[in-house]
């Protein structure tokens, strides 16, 4: 493999839900098949990556979001770090600051402690980087949309007028308030 990013991505795709990083209920990051990550030439090291994954997840925890999905943000920042040494060191420094604030390793801290760390870091560089990546990259990713139930572009599918724009299980409003469509 010559391109570490592509190979890691395809690995994650094949590996599905059970591999990659798994964040257990208590918040501890465990690694199954971690060799796959370690074998790649990533810009950021394992500890930094693990912490980033958990920070992203702590910021926007969702039952339907798998760890593979959270890797979207880690991957994206890893890509930037591989092109820019200053990004790489900022990520490492940021994780170190989070660890320090957690009084050990952020990834080993209780969820209560981790929320406190996040709160204390609001507006700081690494916090902003992670939040920005989650908002702008993670939530702008079609795989995440599919899980959360946003259907993305609709023009190529003819819009929703024949595809469930009135299918929610609430009472149908009066004809006066909501007339029938022109096609009916």
């Amino acid at each position, binding site marked *: 493999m010559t391109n570490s990013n592509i190979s890691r991505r395809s690995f994650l795709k094949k590996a599905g839900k059970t591999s990659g990083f798994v964040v257990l209920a208590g918040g501890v990051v465990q690694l199954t098949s971690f060799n796959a990550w370690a074998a790649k030439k990533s810009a950021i090291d394992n500890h930094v990556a693990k912490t980033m994954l958990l920070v992203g997840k702590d910021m926007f925890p969702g039952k339907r979001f798998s760890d593979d999905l959270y890797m979207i943000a880690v991957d994206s920042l890893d890509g930037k770090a591989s092109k820019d040494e200053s990004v790489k060191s900022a990520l490492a420094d940021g994780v170190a600051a989070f660890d320090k604030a957690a009084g050990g390793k952020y990834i080993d801290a209780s969820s209560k402690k981790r929320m406190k760390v996040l709160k204390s870091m609001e507006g700081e560089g690494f916090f902003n980087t992670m939040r920005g990546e989650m908002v702008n990259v993670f*939530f702008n990713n079609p795989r995440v949309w599919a899980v959360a139930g946003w259907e993305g572009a609709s023009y190529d599918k003819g819009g929703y007028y024949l595809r469930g724009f009135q299918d929610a299980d609430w009472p149908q409003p009066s004809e006066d308030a909501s007339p029938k469509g022109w096609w009916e």
Partner: protein
Amino acid sequence: MAKKFDLNDDTVAVVIGSGAGGGTLSNELAQKGINVVCLEAGKRYTTDDFVNDEWAAFLQTAWLDKRTTSGSWRVATDFPGLPSWIVKSVGGSTLHWAGASLRFQEHEFKVKTEYGDVAGASLLDWPISLKEMEPYYDKAEDKIGVTRTHGIPGLPGNNNFKVLYDGAQKMGYKDCHTGRMGINSMPRDGRNACLQLGFCFQGCKSGAKWSAGYSEIPKAEKTGNFELRTEAHVIQITHNKAGKIDGVVYVDKDGNQQKQKARIVAVAGNSIETPRLLLMSNTSMYPDGLSNSAGQVGKNYMRHLTASVYALMDKPVNMHRGTTMAGIITDESRNDPSRGFVGGYEMETLSLGLPFMAAFLVPGTTGYGPKMGKFLDNYDHMAGMWIVGEDMPQESNRVTLNTNEKDQNGMPVPNVHFDDHANDLAMRKHAFGKGTDVYKAAGALDVFETPPYPSTHNLGTCRMSEKARDGVCDKHGKSHDIANLFISDGSQFTTGAAENPTLTIVSLAIRQAEYIAKEMAKGTI
């Protein structure tokens, strides 16, 4: 038949901006046989160019020139460089608008009389009444093709509306329906019917939604009296020795400065760029900028109350399917000071896609955490509304020139200063409460009270007034100081009312065109 006018042709009317105000005024003047050059800073896009992608569409057409903010409003913290969401493109913000097209209520044209003195507010009655506006509202509704007017049926309500309606019924609200919308419920005026795409804020690919860009401009071009110049960014309005306007200077797409002569100039750059341009055009004769003898240019900036309530429902909603703004509750729009504030507000459904929802649900650095994660994870269970209320004009809320920062043309950037008035805060609190009640009644598990987005309704910075000392222009949008200078956009608003502004902007433009044509014929301008 697109026409070309000479830069030295001093018989033309120059219109700055091609949005709701400028696009409409241009077409109306051209229809009356007046030669018009419309200068638009943005590019021209067709419905084919629009993309069903929130960030891509935003980057494609939003006004992203440098701006700064100050004041205690939350937008200044959350979006310091982006005080407003306006469009830089042919058609202006009507490319992204949702289409809600409501007339003002009678009392909203005379709030000073109606509300009395409100401490800290620079309230003023409009120099026009609803009665005078009615014929123009009528024409504007016909032009735009507003549903539930002129025999045009209302739109069918989508999922987001069904939830709103259910909540409204249970709350005992009387007036809840799919709204008066500038969206075709059936084919009309050469435009398609709405396909319920759900990307109204990104440019309507089916062309069902009225936009000055493809509804007004092509009609103006057909007259043979009209030239549109795109990527023509006006940086100065010039005058002759007698103090009358004689032309404008603009930067063309190659970065070269051009000077277009003019018989009259109408400014319609939206309420931040319009006062900025007047201020930037200062000379030794007009040291404080054009039309600023009363010192009112840039003051009384209004942005509507705005707030949103997003609910997590107990069942799937799929609010994103269909029109972005799919219905309205008008019961709270009355003036009823017993609620603890003057003026009123509208509740209108609103849906954002997941990318924008992540950015706007709780904007800024506090926008994260378990509750936010739960909402976004269950995006398909969300329902939402936007609250549009009358905010108080205040002299200190204003657009000024920030001479420490320069834009791409080397011109000082506009600074937008805003503090919420106590009345705004009281109204927002009330509206959050009622919005929450609506969704709780419809089965919500939890709600977010979402603070304002960058302003989409920018108003009042060159307000019309009966007396010259109270404002910038008269009841026709004509400058109090300079007879051949006109304000033709939302900057004219004396006060904001509770209703979305565009129908009123378009009505004023139709009315202004009539006035200009008449005065030109008489030779007074």
